[in-house]
């Protein structure tokens, strides 16, 4: 195709993974543009195929993770994200971005709260793909690995049964292969019922190149696993 699809990254004070996320998006073929929340307008979404909320600590996450970012999006953009989504746009939230999407109600109801260990944890974890219909995951195998780095990544739902329902209904797109933070059903990522929004705690943008793996001898695929997540959504929006 002649022109590259557009990805729009929203940046808040404290967003800190925007550069490597933009790098990953460009690597698979997107045109990636990062706009601070103070300068973003409704028009910015007009020619955007993918909206991205990247990792970090928006406004410091001092009160509740992502709470201020949620309020700022509502204040400055109203229901722009919902409209964008209703009109067929795709949204990706990574780590803090996942927390923001949860608060905005763009994903199945639930909260991302303090890890059971009550500690920040930075490590590589095994992941399992639980759905076949995610436009973000179709080029990934069923089992793969990505790094996590969060203190508030424990996914809980009002009733534990809700999380079971998410598993059954294909909303729990990704689970951890081990219990890393106490998430119900070990859920690591959720998608919406329309299958156009994905939120996940692990960081695909940190595993684009093979050599980003901790093991010098890692050769399970041509690229790092995160590459395939971005490649999947690229294929989807350019199909």
């Amino acid at each position, binding site marked *: 195709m002649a022109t590259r699809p557009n990805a729009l990254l929203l940046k808040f*004070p*404290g967003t*800190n*993974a925007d*550069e*490597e996320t933009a*790098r*990953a998006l460009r690597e698979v073929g997107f045109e990636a543009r990062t706009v*601070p929340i*103070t*300068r973003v307008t409704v028009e910015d979404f007009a020619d955007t195929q993918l909206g991205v909320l990247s*990792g*970090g*600590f928006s*406004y*410091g*996450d001092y009160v509740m993770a992502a709470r201020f970012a949620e309020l700022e999006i509502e204040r400055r953009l109203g229901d722009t994200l919902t409209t964008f989504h209703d009109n067929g746009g795709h949204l990706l939230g990574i780590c803090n971005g996942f927390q923001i999407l949860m608060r905005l109600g763009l994903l199945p109801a639930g909260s991302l709260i303090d890890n059971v260990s009550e*500690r*920040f*944890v*930075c*490590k*590589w974890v095994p992941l399992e793909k639980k759905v076949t219909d995610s436009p973000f995951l179709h080029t990934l195998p069923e089992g793969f690995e990505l*790094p996590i*780095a969060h203190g508030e990544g424990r996914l809980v739902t009002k009733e534990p049964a809700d999380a079971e329902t998410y598993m059954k209904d294909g909303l729990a797109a990704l689970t951890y292969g081990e219990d890393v933070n106490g998430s119900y059903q070990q859920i690591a990522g959720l998608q919406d019922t329309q299958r156009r929004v994905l939120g996940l705690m692990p*960081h695909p*943008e*940190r595993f*684009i190149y093979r*050599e*980003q793996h*901790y*093991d*010098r*001898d890692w050769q399970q695929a041509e690229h790092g696993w995160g590459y395939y997540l971005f490649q999947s959504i690229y294929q989807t929006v350019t199909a």
Partner: protein
Amino acid sequence: MSPPKQTYRHIEVRSLDGDALEHLSCDMKLSLSREDMVEVQKYFNDADREPTDVELEVIAQTWSEHCKHRIFGALIQHELDGAKETVDGIFKTHIKEVTEAIWKDKPDFILGAFVDNAGFVRLDDNVAVCLKVETHNHPSAIEPYAGANTGLGGVIRDIIGAGKGAKPVASLDVFCFGSPDTKSEDIKADDVLHPLGIMRGVVRGVRDYGNRMGIPTVSGAIQFDPAYIYNPLVFCGTAGTIPIGDIEKEVLSGHKIVAVGGRTGKDGLHGATFSSASLTTDSHEEDQQAVQIGNPIEEKKACDFVLEARDRGLIGFITDCGAGGFSSAAGEMLSVTGGELYLENAPLKEPGLVSWEIFLSESQERMVLAVDEKHLPELQELAETYETEAVLLGHADGSGILKVWHDGELVVELDCSKLHEAPRQTRNSKWTTPTFRDDVSLEGSTGDLFHKVLGDFAVVSREPIIREYDHEVQGNTFLKPLGGATGDAPQDGSVIHIDGSKPMMSMALSLLPEWGKTAPYEMGLACVDECVRQLVICGADPKRLALLDNFCMGNPDDETELGCLVETTKGMAEAATFYQAPFVSGKDSFYNYFETEDGPVSVPVTLLISGLGIIDDRKQVVGSSLRHDGSALFLIGKMSTELGGSVAARVSGITDARVPKCDLAANLARYENLYSALQKGHVASAHDVSEGGLITTIAEMAFSMKAGVEIDAFFSKEQLFAETPGCIVVEVESTEVDDFQALFGDDAQQIGKTTSAHKKLVIADQIEEDLTSLKERWQHGLTPYY
């Protein structure tokens, strides 16, 4: 409206005698000596007026040990084992002149040293890298979380203010604590926090600043020693990158002075002068206001603002507000041109601050810029974009005089050229080489001793702490602090990919305080040697390394303690000169001693050498974890039997062993050969012999769990546990053995092999242990405490 309040006062100094001047310094907490106060008096006699309180505060912080490093500048009459010598300033003789001599040979590599916030070296044609390390010891003793938090925040700000603004890309942290299992009754002072509380607070402080800023904390070390109970040491360092064209900066007459970032409050008053005296029990009550409060998001916003302003060419000069606040930042900026500042323009956290509080406050997250007037509107717009504050504080005017106004009153009028001239100190120091025992041997079985060493706090895995740091953010941590097949084996350093450049940067560090207790000169040699060695093992070109020296010591008024420092700097200077590895930045911290119930306790003279190296090709980065079965294990260098400074000696209660020799010529040749072997692809992995000795090095390599190890060469127990500088264990691909051996000749000895037959560590006739249980012991040593 309330009546206008006097925000400053004049202080009578011209009529005072020496005693009264000293009292005045004490009452105002100026930390100025009698001689300093006499100089101050002279200045105002010449000016024919009394100073304001603001002026006295400005001079006190400008001349403080923290800002001026007067002990490193002092003329020292030194005595080594009775032989007298004169050291014409430690900084000049053992640091600056060393670098200047190397600089002549490497003008294209060293792009800046000592002048700016950090030293710069060339990464490639377009980009330079820089590194700065600071200590935040006193604040961390009193408020571990806030002290360490702002310690890292401060050094990150140094990088943001280096050149016209460098981008922080990686951080390191080094801590010295009392042992986490210290018994409470062994702490001989009231109100001193338990080492465990200090450790937890400090780690979390570093974690919360680094993680929120989005700067990976990738390197570090922890030392445990009872002498650090009262004065923990907290070193924080940050590396940055900058386009080479943005290194040079200049304040021009007519430039506007702009403050950016956080607001000014009452936190961090007297920080610089507080850090220039020793801690007492009273400190824990009285000096809390000297500890600043950190807000990393404020700094993140300022950082985003600065980097974009730099790229748009809007910055003429920039520096950060550190110790001394506006006074030292603006003082530095206006030291040549002179200029005027208006304190009422500074945004405040709270109303009611008097003049000196605004001017001297060390509130965090503030940067000061000098900019062309025409850029002001664009800077204002950019500040709004990133939700930070940028305010016009004043201007540079070419008068050579610093004038500070507050609500129409002139509160400071000082001649900049005289401001930075503190009287030079003269000091005495001496060092007497202790008597060593030459027939030191280790008791008990190798296995028992190995278990003890592997489980010692000095050796056990730092994993519980490393996991709390986001060491992967920015996506460029190429060699991580933990690696190997399971991502949890130790490495000799870190390697950072720099966006847009092919060469990468390695970071490593060394500190050996145990050595300095008996052999400070050798500690200086060995710290430089270890840092250089680790940088090369990480893949760096031994000809393109840059070092930093950070010192902490107790009481410089004690001749022996100062003598220990002098000897350390002599050793360090010799090694750096030999390796042609320049010091590009550094810092020193004195008065790390404490009056306990049992008398004063000083920290051992502690030298931290940290460094940067340049790696041309990522293939040279192999890591320190075994890669395969069926490869050959070589030792390069010869293990000696001297046990001084080793973990094995300490756990065996040996204090009079000689430290091993550091043979600079042999080591340098070896590192150059290793670099060549890495370039040629002979090396699968390499790990140096350090804490825990050769046996620990081999075990740590095997913790990748990819293969079992069989060592068939003979080593005495002393050789297995000595920490001989320069020795490296190398895993060599079976196909490369001949080439590798040819390259090193006699300096390399094949000592064993890796095998798929078992997952054990076998050392012929001495050890046969399951790797899983060894690793378990090593990996979880800190877990119960952290």
